[in-house]
């Protein structure tokens, strides 16, 4: 049987000012088909990717922020947001879009995908990965 690896996508850049957030999301969606143990981390300006109420109509670019809400449908349920990054930016979880997944082992109960974690917790998570894609 194939080994399942721990994949972490590290998102540290703000959306819209550069394409990294969008192109990172494209990797995540393709990667979801590979049945690995996937998690996403949002650190530094990466937390801005999850902001509510993004409206790109005035800058003429694609508003890909809605796509994050589809991650649960791709069985991506581990979304780590660093607390220190939120704090520094005057943000809390309430400023972020709600992201959920349905747990098939728990009668398809809808559960929260976002876990706000401390630096110490995140350091442990990062150190435990097999493959880290950085954006």
């Amino acid at each position: 049987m194939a080994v399942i690896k721990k994949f972490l996508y590290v998102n540290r850049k703000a959306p819209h000012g550069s394409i990294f957030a969008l192109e990172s999301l494209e990797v995540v969606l393709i990667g979801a088909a590979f049945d690995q143990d996937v998690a996403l981390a949002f650190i530094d300006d990466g937390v801005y990717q999850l902001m509510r109420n993004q409206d790109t109509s005035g800058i003429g670019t694609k508003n890909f922020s809605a796509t994050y809400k589809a991650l649960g449908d791709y069985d991506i349920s581990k979304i780590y947001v660093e607390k220190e990054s939120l704090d520094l930016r005057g943000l809390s979880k309430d400023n972020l879009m709600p992201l959920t997944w349905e747990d098939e082992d728990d009668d398809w109960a809808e559960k929260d995908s976002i876990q706000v974690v401390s630096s110490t917790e995140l350091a442990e998570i990062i150190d435990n990965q097999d493959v880290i894609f950085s954006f």
Partner: protein
Amino acid sequence: MKFGIMVSAGPYTHQASDTAYYFTEAALKNGHEIVRVFFYHDGVNNGTSLGVPPQDDRNITTRWSALAEKYDLDMVLCVAAAQRRGLLDENEAKRAGKDVSNMAAGFNISGLGQLIDAGIQADRLLVFGD
């Protein structure tokens, strides 16, 4: 008023190229003159004829080309920056022994002197970049 515009970032990768476009368009709509749009650094990649963005996205290059057509804009790619990054018009391609060129409509290749000249001619020079 006369504006010179320098675009230092490639299309899609950084928003700078979008902002430069909207600024240029707004200046023209408000009756100002654009002396030149000069593409430098990765900005030269705005001039590729081979870009195929997704259907639901903007096409940055054809948008520049259309603006140039409408307002008779002078859009110049720096020759040294373009050669380094693989943007060639027919003349440059021939000179380099390449059998293809990839310059989109409305863009021209010229030297850095055109950037300095834009600075001299324009009342305001703006840099949009990464």
